[in-house]
């Protein structure tokens, strides 16, 4: 009954309001985009003098003058960029992959199985979420400095594993898995139990296929975190052979005199792959971030 009374005024108001919305959203979009556009465009300008001349004008955002891939070539010549890229990718992906298995297994046991100490263990995991990595970084450095490895070295410094193994188990990931598993109906597993299926088969053949969303969430959140890891590699890595992109970027940035074209080419090559992956799997990214926040 009330509807017709409201609708006309709304429609009447709609178009200027909608125009205002678009205008506002466009302005904010420019704010979000301008550093990224600037980075991409500058990377293509081979002439360092031109970059400096244009840096205070609107031309800084436009592909003006002579465009080339020279800066990208320079980056490969000056630093082992490909090596850094492989290192970062290898480290982040290994953390994600092992993390998915290890964290979902413990979460499955916590959510579904009965064993002594279960409740205490759950409480410990929840408590561990609060401890930020930053608070343990310095003592952890002391520990990994004196850990033996299979190759006979008596320290973990300057290696891949020192950047991977400490981050595989993650209390927050366990918690996300645990919450998701709790909401899966038990009937299917009970049927499997009657059929004599082992716990591992139930986990692998029933739970994992039903839990794709949470696996994607944990994978994306872990990847975003560890792809950008900076503090820890800064402390444990010297050798360029195992150095990730973040530390590589800092070292490259610190080389004077600064070649801004090269720096932006470096930045572009780091940003583009992730940006493309993000655009392809946008929905998953957004859902992952959203679900990291639902349970406060």
């Amino acid at each position, binding site marked *: 009954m*009330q509807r017709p009374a409201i609708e006309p005024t709304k429609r009447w108001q709609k178009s200027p309001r909608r125009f205002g*919305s*678009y205008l*506002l*959203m466009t302005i*904010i979009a420019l704010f*979000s*985009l*301008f550093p*990224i556009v*600037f*980075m991409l465009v*500058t990377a293509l300008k081979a002439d360092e003098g031109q970059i400096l001349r244009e*840096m*205070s004008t609107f031309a800084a955002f436009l592909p003006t003058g002579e465009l080339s891939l020279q800066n990208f070539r320079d980056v490969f010549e000056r630093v082992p960029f490909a090596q850094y890229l492989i290192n970062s990718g290898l480290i982040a992906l290994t953390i994600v992959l092992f993390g998915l298995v*290890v*964290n979902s*297994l*413990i979460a499955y*046991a916590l959510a579904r199985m*009965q*064993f*002594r100490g279960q409740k205490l*263990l759950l409480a410990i995991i929840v408590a*561990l979420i*609060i*401890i*930020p990595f*930053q*608070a343990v*970084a*310095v*003592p952890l450095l002391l*520990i990994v400095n004196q850990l033996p490895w299979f190759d006979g070295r008596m320290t973990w410094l300057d290696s891949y594993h020192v950047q991977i*193994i400490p981050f*595989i*188990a993650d*209390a927050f990931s366990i918690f996300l898995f645990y919450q998701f598993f709790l909401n899966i109906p038990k*009937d299917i597993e009970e049927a499997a139990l*009657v059929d004599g299926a082992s716990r591992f088969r139930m986990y692998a053949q029933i739970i994992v296929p039903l839990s794709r969303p949470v696996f994607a969430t944990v994978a994306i959140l872990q990847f*975003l975190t560890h792809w950008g890891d*900076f*503090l820890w590699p*800064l402390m444990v890595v010297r050798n360029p052979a195992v150095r990730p992109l*973040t530390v590589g*970027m*800092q070292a490259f940035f610190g080389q004077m005199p600064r070649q*801004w074209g090269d720096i*932006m080419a470096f*930045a572009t090559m780091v940003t583009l792959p*992730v940006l493309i992956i*993000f*655009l392809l799997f946008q929905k998953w*990214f*957004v859902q992952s*971030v*959203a*679900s990291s926040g*639902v349970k*406060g």
Partner: protein
Amino acid sequence: MTISKSPTAQPQATPRTPMLGWKRREQRVAWAFVAPALLLLSIFLIAPFGLAFYLSLTDQRLVPNLNLPTRFVGFKHYLAMWQDATFVRALLNNFLFVLIVVPVQTSFALFLAILVNQKIKAINFFRTIYFMPVVTMMAIVAVVWTFLYNPDQGIINSFIQTISFGQLGPYRWLEDPKLAFPAIMLMSIWQGVGFQMVIYLAGLQEIPGELYEAAQLDGANAWQQFRFVTLPQLRNTSIFVVISTTIMAFKLFDQVEIMTKGGPNDATVTAMLHIVNSGFRNQKVGYASALSVVFFVIVLLISFGQRIVTRSER
């Protein structure tokens, strides 16, 4: 072995011998599932956490010196840190960051979320753009913004000069003790706001539409709907966003390390930067551990604050 068992019965319901064997097996399997994660967490989180407390009472150094054995120094570090001007400044900076960035970023994120929650064309395009800075590495963001903040010719300076008709600027952003930290704050908001926007967007989409219809029938205008429907419904989301942004503010490190190294004159030093400088660069692990413990206690208090606020509502 489970033939006699009905599908709904719980294992403990029938205490017979085959059941006992099953239970014991279940125990063993459960611990096998738990073991890898628990072992890793013990070595790389629980052990260093405990070690931090112990080390904070010693004068442990990163590389042990055989001539100077590590001594127990009691609470010396905990007293000394308050005389350490850099540490006090770092904590103040962290609190300042919280005080400014948390309200600004949170309200901006909420504003963006409401803006992109409209059912209009091309809305996904805008959501994507606002989220793009989040997937850009902080190390990269910091480097790019250093160029944007260039003291003489930077684009930010020329933008401010243009819109103020030459009245304002140019500023020496990262070299000016008064401006360096605000400059880092602005950049951090730029990078982080998309993350919280998405969390708010999820919160907005969970608000039942009937609430708005009811409010409209009562004659509530847009502002009243926001004030009396949206905000109260987003209460828990907001608490989460505020707390997580606060904790993030305390972890502040990457930006300051790359852009200013804490300078000029400690204007941008943060707790984390000072911990790394003391423990790693100056090798004073004992002192840095004490700082880490204080850092942890602050984060813990914030988390408890969140619990208390969330509970009092329920």
